[in-house]
């Protein structure tokens, strides 16, 4: 499959009153056409900032992209002007936000907000655009779409609003959808509906999806490949199966062990000691070092993202070719008991 989007050496800083923080630190990844990619991490790990940088909607200032290039097919998004970006946003890449109540305009009807997509990108007349908006609502399984066109966001439930967001995101058949915690504000039965909807769009129209979430279950149910981020860096990336069954970074392993399984009997929860680093004082060397049960002397130096298998990379000294534990780690005997 050809590469659809490529992010190269992306670094983003935020200038705050307390100082400058490096929110995204030299991030590299790509996503193929038709692929679903998950980005996992805890709050402040830089996953949303990465998504916003791709969309070109980082609030600048305080944010600043200090380095990096982002390519969509052959177009370099980072070199485009705001006006050119507007032609791409919504048409080729669109985004679904966490909270549909704040992402939708409360004083415009649902119909007008979706129709705007068609008027902007396909230069349709108002009436034609509304007709397409009705179809868009239908395609995300909203009952009585015609009546909904006249309604305002506050008249819909949380799940319905998220469907409206998805209808808007899909309106112009984009090549890529970035969903930033799309189900975090929703109940579990509604979450299942939304994930099901995203999966069917991916399978039926081949839309690529980047799903950002802290929920390893949601990621497992939709994504083929997964990136784990910690303190602004990618610390592990792999095919979903490998990542969940053969995690090769102590943080990934800790994360997997700290969520209980709904399908298994009570086992002990292994918690990761300490707390995510303060971005103002990220540890030099491995950023996970201070919390890592395997930390060694060499972890004071920054490890590189090392290949350890097909499409499997980990940023850990344990996986270094010179490490005595590399074989044990690769076979899954080190982290998994």
């Amino acid at each position: 499959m050809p590469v659809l989007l490529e992010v190269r050496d992306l670094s983003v800083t935020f200038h705050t009153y307390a100082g400058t923080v490096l929110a995204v630190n030299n991030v590299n990844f790509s996503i193929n056409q038709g692929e679903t990619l998950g980005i996992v991490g805890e709050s402040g790990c830089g996953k949303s900032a990465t998504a916003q940088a791709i969309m070109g909607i980082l609030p600048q200032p305080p944010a600043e992209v200090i380095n990096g290039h982002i390519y969509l097919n052959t177009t370099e998004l980072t070199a485009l002007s705001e006006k050119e970006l507007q032609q791409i946003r919504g048409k080729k890449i669109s985004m679904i936000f966490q909270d549909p109540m704040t992402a939708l305009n409360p004083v415009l009807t649902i119909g007008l907000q979706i129709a705007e997509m068609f008027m902007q990108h396909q230069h349709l007349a108002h009436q034609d655009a509304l007709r397409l908006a009705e179809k868009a609502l239908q395609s995300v399984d909203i009952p009585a779409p015609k009546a909904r066109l006249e309604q305002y966001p506050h008249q819909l439930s949380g799940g319905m609003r998220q469907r409206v967001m998805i209808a808007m995101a899909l309106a112009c058949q984009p090549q890529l959808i970035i969903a930033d915690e799309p189900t975090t504000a929703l109940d579990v039965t509604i979450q299942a509906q939304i994930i099901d909807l995203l999966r069917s769009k991916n399978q039926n129209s081949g839309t690529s999806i980047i799903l950002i979430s802290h929920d390893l279950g949601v990621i497992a149910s939709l994504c083929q490949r997964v990136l784990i981020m910690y303190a602004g860096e990618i610390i592990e990336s792999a095919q979903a199966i490998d990542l969940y069954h053969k995690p090769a970074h102590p943080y990934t392993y800790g994360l997997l062990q700290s969520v209980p399984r709904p399908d298994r009997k009570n086992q002990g929860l292994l918690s990761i000691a300490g707390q995510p680093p303060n971005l103002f004082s990220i540890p030099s060397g491995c950023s996970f070092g201070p919390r890592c049960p395997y930390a060694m002397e060499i972890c004071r130096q920054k490890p590189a993202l090392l290949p350890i298998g097909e499409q499997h990379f980990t940023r850990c000294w344990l996986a270094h070719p010179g490490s005595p534990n590399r074989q044990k780690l690769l076979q899954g005997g080190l982290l998994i008991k």
Partner: protein
Amino acid sequence: MNNPILSVDHLSKIFVLHRTFLGGAAASVKAIDSVSFSIFPGETFGLVGETGCGKSTLARTIAGLYQPTDGKVLFKGHNLHAPQEKHNSIVFKRQIQMIFQDPYASLNPRMTIRDIIEEPLSIHKLAKGKEKEARISSLLHQVGLNAEYGSRFPHECSGGQRQRVGIARALAVNPELIICDEPISALDVSIQAQVINLLEQLQTELGLTYLFIAHDLSMVRHISTRVAVMYLGSLVELAPTEELYSQPLHPYTQALLSAIPIPDPAIEAHRNRILLPGDIPSPLDPPSGCKFHNRCRYAMPICQKISPELTATDLNHYTACHLVK
């Protein structure tokens, strides 16, 4: 089994939204609709349900923060809300403490951690002077915080540390029952496990009983001895944890369990979900009969007319459904 520590008997809570000009209720929400259950000493009773099902209202009514509209809450056989028990109620209420969802909103930003933990000790006159200071530092130690945290303010602590302070505050008065209302949902994944492990450790050390309310069904399975499922103000199923998760009887419980994503792509790839149609109905205008009938796969004509009672289908397994009888 021994006597329950807490019994909830046909408890109802109605919130009046508007009144007519004569003072009658023009619109009201039945947040809890005749709920009954018992909690036994030393167990963790899990209560799950989706937004707006009334689980937090139930917690607050039990804790005495709301007056019930109807029904009783009995703590060790004493009715907490009865006027004749008023002189006793402060003693009983001390034995029921609460941990809140949002560690940012439930700590006073203008008080130091020491003062926050000290307040319940002074109100209930449990300790004085040196003894009090020793108690505060031992409480901090018990929840895994350094004594130096006493001089900090809440904004100087992370979310997980604040939740620990909330736990220390609840422990200060030596309670027997702690109501945990979504204690981990505001925390990061790696911190959630820390707080859950702390709660479990404290339970073993101090012999506490928990009422654990959450929407995270995986965590509820992990921590609970028995679990009750709530839908639109009523209990629909109540069973020992392993039985509820392996053999759910109510169609809503079945759908709820099938909706939880499992953190394993190999399993997820072959899973058949029961997708519920539509949204949770508004509690302002709940469906007639069984409140779940309009989303139920097995709905029958009787479900629209008669609301099923919570009945024992097996020893300790209760279900409110016309199908299971």
